[in-house]
């Protein structure tokens, strides 16, 4: 199954953030590729776990870096944006914890993946785009 997540339209015009978004989407793509390929669940599971951790670590790293950038530019919606990141990070961490506790059930991980992808795309094209508009309006050089 071919999965292509990244689209040029997701670029928000801030090179460092665009680079990290591309990296994040690449990691989500690796997770989805492992999850959605044909085959027995038990055989797919080691790769699913590995790519899940790889992706989840980058969610935390990217959000932290983006928040640092927002502080640096004095982004007025920083607190609100940080809260959105916090809530989603909690969701990702809780899901990962629940998967471990409940024995990595395929149904639950497929559901998580659907939410993850829709959330991330909306976050980039709607919430992060607001930050970009602030930068382009001259909020930062």
């Amino acid at each position, binding site marked *: 199954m071919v999965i292509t*997540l990244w689209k040029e339209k997701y670029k928000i015009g801030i090179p460092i953030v665009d680079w990290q978004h591309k990296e994040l989407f690449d990691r989500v793509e690796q997770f989805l590729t492992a999850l959605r390929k044909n085959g027995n669940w038990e055989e797919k599971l080691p790769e699913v776990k590995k790519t899940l951790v790889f992706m989840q670590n980058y969610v935390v790293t990217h959000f932290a870096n983006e928040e640092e950038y927002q502080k640096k530019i004095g982004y007025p919606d920083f607190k609100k944006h940080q809260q959105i990141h916090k809530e989603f990070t909690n969701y990702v961490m809780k899901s990962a914890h629940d998967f471990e506790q409940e024995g990595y059930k395929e149904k639950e991980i*497929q*559901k998580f993946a659907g939410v993850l992808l*829709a959330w991330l795309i909306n976050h980039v094209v709607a919430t992060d785009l607001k930050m970009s508009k602030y930068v382009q309006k001259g909020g930062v050089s």
Partner: protein
Amino acid sequence: MAEQKFKTNPFYDATKDVFKSMLDMDISELKSNGQTGQEENVKIEIALVGDLSGSTIYSFPKSTTLNIVKSLSGMETDTLDDFATSMLGEIANIISGNAVTALSGMNYKCDIKPPQITVGNSAANKDENSVDMLLHSQAGVMREHICLAKS
């Protein structure tokens, strides 16, 4: 009619914005014929609580659902599995969240509950408090059944 505006406008506008930003698709309203066809539907119910109470039910026929999944993930699939239905659940959640933000601008403070997702052929029951919108995009048709009343 004015009474219906708080029911339809925020949801229509939110759907239009979310489809445009996430999917690059335009939404238009069709004349409702009371059904979205004989296809299996992904039905997502999101309850609202606060100054307004009730729920919005989003119905995405199978073909629309699979087109949306393909557009967002690049994945061709022919089944309504958990990945596809939960992705649609999150999109409905985003639309409802944006509609609630618009409602707060109309002085109705509300919160939404987590989406309840089912797959089947049943249609939402229409009553005097509900409004139905049949919407069309490049992904296909979808229906929004909005049943809200002032608390």
